[in-house]
């Protein structure tokens, strides 16, 4: 009996709306932030991750059908989601200081997700890790792959490239106190062609902390490949949103390949 492999739906939030994304650029609103929470609770998912996407618009941009309602703040959304979620909840995107993390945890998140901050102000990540324990800190690495060359890491929502190599940057994250690394493929984001397996392998081989893979899931077999590449958990946004019985399909495929997954009661 070993620790189970985790399968995690990711929900992307932009200006209070649930969105889907492609290559970090195309953003389409797909529902209200709670749209999937009940469904995921019913499916008995292992965990949930909410990531806020930076909005370039100053004013709140709602879908036409929610035009007349007062927009909910992100913390209000977090509170509501936390109230309805009986599995661990990770929340992040745009967190810039220890205080942001503290507020996030106070409002119901179990773990905070830091991406740009790991590079921008690693001491804030370390402070969070020292205060809450590293198990409450998820560090994100967004990776873009151009052809056969080495992958490139991008921060600030995929707008600023870093010169680190992936192995070194992964080790740096572990060093500053990150408890899990979420490696996300910008290239494969939304393309349903499979995860960036080489990047997953590189990160998993460089660190001792668990690695979560995200970006590119299109078929149940993709999830199996991501685990075989070294991930301890697999995550997906679009796949869960658009595929019927997603959780069951993924876990059945994994079980068939001898991967230890938790089967819902």
């Amino acid at each position, binding site marked *: 009996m070993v620790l189970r492999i985790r399968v995690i739906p990711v929900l992307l939030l932009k200006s209070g709306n649930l969105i889907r994304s492609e290559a970090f650029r195309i953003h389409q609103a797909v529902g209200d932030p709670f749209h999937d929470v009940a469904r995921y609770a019913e499916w008995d998912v292992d965990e949930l991750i909410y990531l806020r996407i930076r909005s370039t618009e100053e004013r709140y941009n709602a879908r036409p059908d929610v035009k007349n309602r007062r927009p909910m703040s992100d913390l209000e959304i977090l509170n509501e989601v936390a109230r309805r979620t009986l599995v661990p909840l990770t929340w992040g995107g745009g967190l810039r200081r220890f205080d942001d993390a503290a507020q996030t*945890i106070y409002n119901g998140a179990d773990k905070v997700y830091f991406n740009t901050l790991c590079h921008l102000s690693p001491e804030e990540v370390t402070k969070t890790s*020292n205060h809450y324990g590293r198990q409450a800190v998820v560090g994100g690495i967004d990776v873009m792959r151009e052809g056969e060359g080495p992958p490139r890491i991008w921060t600030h929502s995929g707008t600023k490239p870093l010169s680190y190599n992936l192995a070194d940057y992964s080790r740096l994250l572990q060093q500053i106190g990150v408890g899990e690394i979420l490696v996300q493929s910008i290239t494969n984001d939304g393309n349903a062609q499979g995860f960036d397996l080489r990047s997953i392998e590189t990160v998993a081989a460089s660190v001792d902390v*668990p690695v979560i893979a995200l970006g590119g899931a299109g078929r149940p077999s993709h999830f199996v490949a991501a685990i075989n590449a070294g991930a301890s958990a697999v995550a997906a946004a679009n796949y869960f949103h658009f595929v019927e019985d997603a959780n069951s399909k993924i876990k059945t495929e994994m079980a068939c390949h001898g991967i230890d997954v938790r089967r819902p009661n």
Partner: protein
Amino acid sequence: MQHRSLLGTAKPTVGIVAYGVGNIASLAYAVDRAGAKPVILTASDQLAKVDQILLPGVGAFGWAVRELRETGLWNAITEAAESGVPLLGICLGMQLLATSSDEGEAHQGLGLIPGCVTELKSQVIQARVPHMGWNQVEADEDERFFDVLDGTDMYFAHSYVFHTATDDATQGWTRHGTARIPVVVRRKNVMGVQFHPEKSQSSGAKFLNRVFKGELWY
């Protein structure tokens, strides 16, 4: 200090110790869902009013000890437990029950269940640390936890483990790499679980229900 008997208590009051290191909202919801009344404990004088005490966890040992001592809750918890009030520690809360911990600079725990807290090392146990995710609990067949815990998956998120000084104090385990990790500890009215029952969906809810209804204690 006398504590009210749990028998016949229509709606038991569960005091949740709030010490600034973690998320207690989900625990409060869990208590409520189990049919008990959650009370947030921030000061020592509030402990007299509760039927059970819940000592959470998310956070670092050192910070927790500091906060608990500063608010006076440290002594109040010890007194309440020693006078027989049921006390459940969750995750870090379970580790705080120990005699000592290696986390940060060495720290002294509440000492309610003798033993010490040490760090999991991935090279030693041949597995990734933190121990993060769903894992299966094996509970001792002779003990009261067997029915509700043995064979169930619960969510774990920790890098430190509590090894009790005596074998009989550990009543549940899980495996991670080569490590056999104590996950349920108990000594009289004091209990600790390493997993997060409030984050373990229906298996966790079932366990908490039994706890808050007064079962599993004696």
